[in-house]
């Protein structure tokens, strides 16, 4: 580990907060029993109380009732469960059509692909160049046999926020269900299911300084959903298997610690970063300037390639991310940048910085200085961008 390592990839994973670990500790070493009914032994009853309290607290953060929130192993499982669970519950009864976007994160993207192979029809709603859903197009393509519309709350790469209220209103008016993958938005972008017409919400602990391996799914009362995992009768008989009580407690603590004041601080870091990066010549912001995650900056630099930028930044002690094909295991450019009509070149030179609790103002200046130098150095050896 480097002495001065500046981590700016908080949309990939976050550092666990010590206070979260302290909240979890008793459920690893003292109250480690399985959650039991009130007729069990006291250790199990205490465990059950902790699980219930965590559930109630997380549900309340969404304006939901405790019986509407179940724990999962993370956002990937939550989204798999939402799409495949609705497909299993309604595929025979109501219809086999779903709507999603081209820029969803992998759990929704690939769950939809799997369902497509199984005979479901998947439509993609049109997006504008910032990644926002075209609501008129959504109205056009939604049909009587549409069972589910799955549209993310915020984009994982370019940070664009969707208008969930407006989307949900359209979806409900047409009698379909609405799922949103909120793993990147929650809890920094406030959501309230009493106001927003949404039926299923995927959330995760690992992006908010909570532990990896725990997430949740909000399920509006009465939403048809097939049992996801056989086992015991845990999680309202939807997901069998012993409950991850330390994880659940840690998740609730992590969300409690993510205050609006902290979000405002991250927003200031983001704005400072975007302003500094756009000072570099031939740079453009990816995503929406206003409807944007409070902790996400994503900029494309022309004439340079992202993996080279990332490697140079790593050598200088910064962890950042890029949508370049060269960085991905598949050698495919970012499906997000391509999905909003960008070309391979724009994906190639895109750089994402995502901020978290342990970042300071100085980090923004340091990374902006480093990026300006590295981009200039790479442009110097690039055959592009020089006037003949």
């Amino acid at each position: 580990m480097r002495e001065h390592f500046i981590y700016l990839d908080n949309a990939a994973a976050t550092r666990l907060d010590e206070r979260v670990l302290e909240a979890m500790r008793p459920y690893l070493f003292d109250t480690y029993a399985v959650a039991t009914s009130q007729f069990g032994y006291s250790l199990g009853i205490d465990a059950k109380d902790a699980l219930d309290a965590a559930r109630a607290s997380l549900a309340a953060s969404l304006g939901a009732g405790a019986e509407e929130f179940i724990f999962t192993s993370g956002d990937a499982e939550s989204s798999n469960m939402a799409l495949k669970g609705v497909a299993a519950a309604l595929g025979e009864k109501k219809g086999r059509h779903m709507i999603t976007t081209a820029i969803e994160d992998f759990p929704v993207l690939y769950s939809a692909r799997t369902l497509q192979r199984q005979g479901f029809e998947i439509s993609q709603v049109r997006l504008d160049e910032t990644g926002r859903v075209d609501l008129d197009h959504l109205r056009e393509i939604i049909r009587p046999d549409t069972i589910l519309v799955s549209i993310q709350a915020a984009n994982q790469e370019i940070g664009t926020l969707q208008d969930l209220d407006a989307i949900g209103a359209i979806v409900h008016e047409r009698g379909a269900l609405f799922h949103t993958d909120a793993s990147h938005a929650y809890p920094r972008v406030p959501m309230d299911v009493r106001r927003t017409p949404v039926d299923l919400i995927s959330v995760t602990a690992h992006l908010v300084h909570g532990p990896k391996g725990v997430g949740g799914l909000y399920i509006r009362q009465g939403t048809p959903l097939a049992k996801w995992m056989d086992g015991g009768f845990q999680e309202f008989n939807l997901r069998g298997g012993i409950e991850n009580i330390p994880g659940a407690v840690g998740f609730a603590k992590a969300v409690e610690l993510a205050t609006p004041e902290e979000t405002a601080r991250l927003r200031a870091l983001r704005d400072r970063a975007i302003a500094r990066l756009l000072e570099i010549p031939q740079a453009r912001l990816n995503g929406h300037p206003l409807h944007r995650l409070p902790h996400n900056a994503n900029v494309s630099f022309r004439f340079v390639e992202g993996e080279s930028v990332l490697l140079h930044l790593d050598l200088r002690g910064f962890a950042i991310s890029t949508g370049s094909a060269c960085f991905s295991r598949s050698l495919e450019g970012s499906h997000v940048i391509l999905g909003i009509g960008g070309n391979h070149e724009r994906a190639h030179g895109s750089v994402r910085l995502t901020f978290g609790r342990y970042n300071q103002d100085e980090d923004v200046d340091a990374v902006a200085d480093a990026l300006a130098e590295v981009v200039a150095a790479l442009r110097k050896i690039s055959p592009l961008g020089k006037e003949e």
Partner: protein
Amino acid sequence: MPLPYSEIVMEHFQNPRNVGRIEDPDAKAVEGSPACGDMVAVYLKVDEETHAITDIKFESYGCASNIATGSIITELAKGKTIEEAKEITWQQASEALGGLPPIKTHCSVLAVDGLRAAIQNYEERHGLVQERTPTDEEEIRRRLKHVMNPMVGLDLIRTKLVREVTLHEGQVRIAIALPPDHQFANNIREEIVEKIEPLWDVDHVEVEFVA
């Protein structure tokens, strides 16, 4: 730290040799294109008598493998005759770099192609192309391997987009399995024409989008 790159690759990536342009080159070539990602330009100065490469420079718009391979091939080629330099293979470049990750083959092959294309450019300019073998489908397909499908950054052959190649008396027709209104149709057409038309016995290239 377990980076996928050898120390030599990292060293060349951080301090690329012979980088930049030669103002008055005897030959030059560009491989790749911005739409597809990686791109390499190679510039040569060649002694007319001995055919020795007296100076060589490269520019790269690409990933670490691309930059490091560009750097190493300039070192390998400098001082060699163009006949010798033509024989430099990707394997030799990769070996000189202490190995490259297999997934990065494409980006580094591009640099070797850049060197070969620059030498070819020199030969064409100086009337050194001796035997003119007639173009066949195989040669066209070989060249199409250097045209990228910008959606994924892989070549047209590998992504199975070339549906048909026909040639008849200097007229080449290439059918591509993409719709005519595809986002990158024009990009791809331009690149194909750029690669195929310089062939000595090709008069006209027609690219059709047939999906």
